[in-house]
């Protein structure tokens, strides 16, 4: 596969992850356990959706891709490359919080690895996004530690959430068609390298929270190649409901 095509695939999966998890996080608006968390989840959802917009704009402006709105709101399920972790329904707050923790650390590792990317638009975006992500991971770390130290009920909920999320989160790092070429060309170091750094970053927080880290036994793969959970199609129907009434119109 040509390098440009590989870069397109990389940016598509990054943008799709951000859009879909942003969509899920935005579902907490109005439902948060306390108002401050309502606001925090909305705010992070905005950031995620903003990142996906920025990534789709790179595809459009630098790599001959479609208009970002058409790309986001009109593609079929198979054309989406998000990982399964992002597709899961919000469930209860413990699940959403753990997903946020695992995903945002992965995102941080990914963008950090792109600070020196040979593909300049990604490098520039990484510099911009980094500042926002710092607050997302601070937020996640503080909550995980607090809830794990506040007694058995909340501790057990967080351990269960970690057990439920972990293999899905490992699916973030499903290898692309040719990560080696992307690494050789210094676009980014490839998924396996990101996975290693991610474990290194989350481990101390999880230890501080006294959580047992599961092993990477059966990572949930498929999303990067267009195979999705049953939850994605209904989400896409909902997201495109108004836009698809008339995709040519401006809204």
């Amino acid at each position, binding site marked *: 596969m040509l390098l440009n095509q590989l870069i397109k695939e990389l940016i598509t999966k990054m943008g799709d992850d951000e859009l879909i998890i942003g969509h899920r996080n935005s579902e907490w608006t*109005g439902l948060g356990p306390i108002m401050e968390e309502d606001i925090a989840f909305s705010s992070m959802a905005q950031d995620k959706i903003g990142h996906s917009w920025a990534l789709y704009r790179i595809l459009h402006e630098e790599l001959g891709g479609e208009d970002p709105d058409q790309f986001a*709101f009109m593609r079929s399920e198979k054309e989406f490359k998000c990982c399964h972790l992002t597709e899961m329904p919000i469930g209860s707050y413990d699940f959403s919080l753990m997903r946020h923790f695992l995903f945002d650390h992965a995102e941080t590792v990914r963008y950090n690895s792109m600070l020196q990317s040979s593909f300049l638009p990604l490098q520039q975006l990484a510099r911009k996004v980094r500042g926002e992500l710092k607050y997302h991971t601070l937020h996640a770390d*503080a*909550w995980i530690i607090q809830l794990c*130290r*506040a007694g058995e009920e909340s501790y057990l909920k967080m351990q269960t959430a970690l057990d439920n999320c972990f293999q899905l989160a490992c699916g973030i790092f499903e290898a692309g068609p040719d990560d080696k070429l992307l690494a050789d060309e210094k676009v980014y170091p490839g998924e396996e390298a990101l996975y290693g750094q991610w474990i290194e970053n989350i481990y101390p927080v999880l230890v501080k929270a006294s959580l047992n880290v599961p092993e990477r036994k059966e990572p949930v793969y498929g999303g990067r190649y267009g195979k999705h959970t049953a939850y994605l199609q209904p989400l896409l129907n909902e997201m495109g*409901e*108004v836009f698809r009434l008339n995709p040519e119109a401006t809204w």
Partner: protein
Amino acid sequence: MYGGGYIFEEPNRVQQREEQLHDDPEKLAAFEMRIANGEKIEPGDWMPAEYRRQLIRLIEQHAHSEVIGALPEGTWITRAPGFKRKLALIAKVQDEIGHGQLLYNAAETLGKSREAMINDLLSGKSKYSNVFNYPAETWADVTVIGFLIDAAAIVNQVANAKGSYGPYCRALERICYEESFHLKQGHDAFIELATGTPGQKAMLQDALNRWWQPIMHFFGPPDKVSGHSEKLMQWKVKMASNDDMRNQFLEAYVPKIRELGLTLPDPLLNKNEETGRWEYSDPDWDLFFEVIKGNGPCNKERLDVRKWAEEHGRWIRKALMKEGTFEKKAMPVA
């Protein structure tokens, strides 16, 4: 977003009036003098029991209106068409929850805790603006809310920001600043549909027809039947009469709506050039009071959502209150 113009009455008013008789007449006179001089009353200052009670009621209802008001639009975040609208809508709804937070804080300075206020909301004892008990059926409803309900709320809030209670005025100043951005976004989305395809325009006209009566209800019953405001106006708790605010709204927005080629579902709606005031058909006030009683199309749905959030968040609030578990740094809000 919105403190509806109407402050709902609570049943134990008679008993409270008795208490008010016990206010020290000298202190009361000094208090009323301060207000007449345009001074702000601050949390530690002496104030009549009835003033405190009315303010708690007003600010609490305003806070609930923000939090419940986030729901009809909130359900459209996941369906908003295009990145621009989606991001603007999340930001707006988030601001509304933030306004709720500011207002609960302002009400807490008068001695009622946020938890007590939320409990009263869930039990139905405490009310919120009726307008949020109607459904947002299509995307066009979101633009009508974002433009016209926000505009109506601003009329009300700009007036209240000149009131006598310091913490409420300061919260309102900040809220009005953010609201003016919401209004711009709402106006922009509204115009997009009004000048769009025939389908978009028809969708908007339908939504406008549905929302016109709730909008006319928004400022509360006519002055001739809404009797209890004289003292509240003297104390600068209520800053403008319902009819005056409604008139101000119609004056500013009816021409804007008509300019876009849209119609309003009231054949009598017209400005009387002699009196300078707008005339209109009386909206159905019986319906208005039915909705206050809890019988509107969405009262149950709205409260059920809040109850879900309260119930599912209980273990988290409990865990937050656990002593000695906090790290020294403050909990960051992203």
